[in-house]
C-alpha cells in the first residue's frame, strides 16, 4: 500500500500524545478535557497538513521580518526601587520572598 505523502507527518493525535503534551505544557487535563482537546487538535492539524503540498528543501527559513542587527544597550540600572510593589503582585508573599509549595523534604 502506498502511504500518501500528506499523511507522512500527521498521525492522528491520540490521548497518550495529549497527556504527553499536557505534561510538557504544565497544564493538567482530565479524561474529558483530553478527549475534547484531541478532537480539536486533530481538526487543526488536518488544516495545517496543507503545508506538506509544498516542497521546501531549498528555502531559507524566515526567522525575523525585521532586517536589523540586534542592538546592545549599556548595562545601567534604570529601574526604581519597586521591590514592595513587585512583591505585592505575588499570590502568596512573605515580606521579602516569593513563596512556593515546599520543594525539599
Amino acid at each position: 500500500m502506498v502511504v500518501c505523502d500528506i499523511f507522512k507527518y500527521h498521525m492522528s493525535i491520540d490521548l497518550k500524545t495529549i497527556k504527553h503534551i499536557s505534561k510538557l505544557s504544565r497544564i493538567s487535563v482530565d479524561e474529558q478535557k483530553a478527549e475534547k482537546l484531541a478532537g480539536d487538535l486533530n481538526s487543526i492539524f488536518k488544516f495545517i497538513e496543507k503545508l506538506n503540498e509544498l516542497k521546501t528543501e531549498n528555502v531559507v527559513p524566515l526567522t525575523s521580518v525585521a532586517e536589523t542587527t540586534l542592538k546592545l544597550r549599556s548595562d545601567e540600572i534604570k529601574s526604581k526601587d519597586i521591590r514592595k510593589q513587585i512583591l505585592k503582585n505575588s499570590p502568596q508573599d512573605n515580606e521579602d520572598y516569593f513563596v512556593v509549595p515546599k520543594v525539599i523534604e
Partner: protein
Amino acid sequence: MSDITKQSLSELVKNIKDKKLSSEEVTKAFINRSEKSKELNAYITEDYSSALDKAKKFDQKPNLELKLPGIPMAVKDLFCTDSIRTTAGSKILNNFVPTYESTVTQNIWNEGAILLGKLNCDEFAMGSSNETSFFGNVQNPIDKNLVPGGSSGGSASAVAGQLTPITIGTDTGGSIRQPASFTGIVGLKPTYGSCSRYGIVAFASSLDQAGPMAQNVKDCALLQEVISTYDPKDSTSIDFKRNEYSKELTNNIKGKKIGIPKEYRVEGMPKEIEELWQKGIQYAKDCGAEIVDISLPHTSYALPTYYIVAPAEASSNLARYDGVKYGFRAKGENLTDMYEKTRSEGFGAEVQRRIMIGTYVLSSGYYDAYYLKAQKIRKLIKNDFDEAYKKVDAILTPSTPSSAFKIGEKKDDPVSMYLNDIFTVPVNLAGLPGISIPAGHDAKGYPLGLQIIGKAFDEQNILNIAYAMEEKINFKNKITDWWIK
C-alpha cells in the same frame, strides 16, 4: 456643546485648542456615555475618577502644543499601565498590577492624553470574536448579540460606540483590522518594528504589533504619529525616519499603482464581499490610481503557517505564567502540581489549545516537520509580497471574508473561527503595514471593510490611499444606540 462624543479626534483636538471645550467637559462626556454603555461590556477596568482629576489638572495649565491635549482615551487591556490593573483578558492576570508603563501608552500620555480605562479583548489576544475573554463577550454597537470581532473587540466596540474618541489595539493576525471591519471603523496594523512592543503582554513576538483604531483615517494617522517611535527597550524596534503622518496626509494618489491579488478571491466568499472589492477598485480608479492584477501564489498557505508560528511563540511566551511571582495561583500538592493546576484553571480553553499546539510543534521529533517547515513557507509568503512590490505601490483586498457574525456562532469550531483572518494573516507573516477602512454594508446592514497593504515602512502611502478612498466612499456607520436605555 452637545454631542461631544460624536466628534472625531481631530475635531476634539481643535475645539480644545480653540478653548471651545475643556478637557474636563470632554472627559466627562465620554465617561457619561461609557457609564450608560455597560451592556457593551467594552471595559474591563474603569479609571474614571482619576481621569477626571487629570482632566481638571490639564485645564488648570493647558499645554495646547501637545498632539492629544487633554484627550481622554481608553486602551486595550494588553498594554501594561503603571499601577493600573492589566489583565490581557485572562483569569491568570486578573489581579496583576504592572510596575511599569508600555512605551506606546507612555507616548500617548506624553502628548497629553488621559486614560479612561482598559478595554476588553480576547484572552492574550487569541481570538477573532472577543468570546475568549475571561471578562465575557463584548457586544458590537452595530447590533445586539453580534460579535465586535477580535482580539481588539473591546477597542473596536468602544470607538464605534463612541465610548472613546480613539484607541489603540494590537494585531498579531488581524486583531486590529478584523474588528475595525466588523464595527465600521478604521484600524491600522503598522510595519513590524514601527511601534515598540515593550510593555505589551506578549502573544507571538515575531508578529505582534500595536496600532491605532479610529473613526476616520486622519485620526488614525495622528495617533500613529504619536505611538510610532524607536525604542531601545524593544530589541526589534526599528530606527527609521518616521513621517508626521497626519501633517503629510494627502488625498492625491494619482498614478499610484494598486495591485489586486487574484488569490484573495477565495472559495465560498459571499457575493457581497466580491462586490465590495469591485467597488473599492472603482473608487481607487476614481482617485486616479492605476489598477494592476498581481499574484501572491502562496496566499492559501498563510493561515496554516500562522497556526504553527503563532502558537509556537505563544507556548514559549506564556511559559512565564506559573503562579509564582504574580497572577492567579491554584493550590497544589507540590510545586509541579501547583504549576499544572494554576495553568489549567488560569487559562481559558482557546489559550490552552494554542499552548498545546505550540508545545507539540516545537517538541522533539516534530520541530523540523512543523515549525521549520512553517518558517520556510513564511519566507515564500514574504517573497510573494517582495515580488509584487516590484510592480505596485500598494495592494487592495477585502479585510475579512464576511461581515460580523452572531455571538456563539463559531465558538465551538476553531478552524472556522481561524478562517476569519484569511486576508489579514499574510500581512503579519510578512511584517507589512495594513489598514482596514469601512467601505460599505452587507444586506443585513452590517459594515464591511477594505484592506490596503503597503510596503514595509510605507505607512504614509497606505494612509494616503485610505484617505483618498474614504472621501469617495463616504461611509456612514449605522449606530442606533440600541444599548442605551
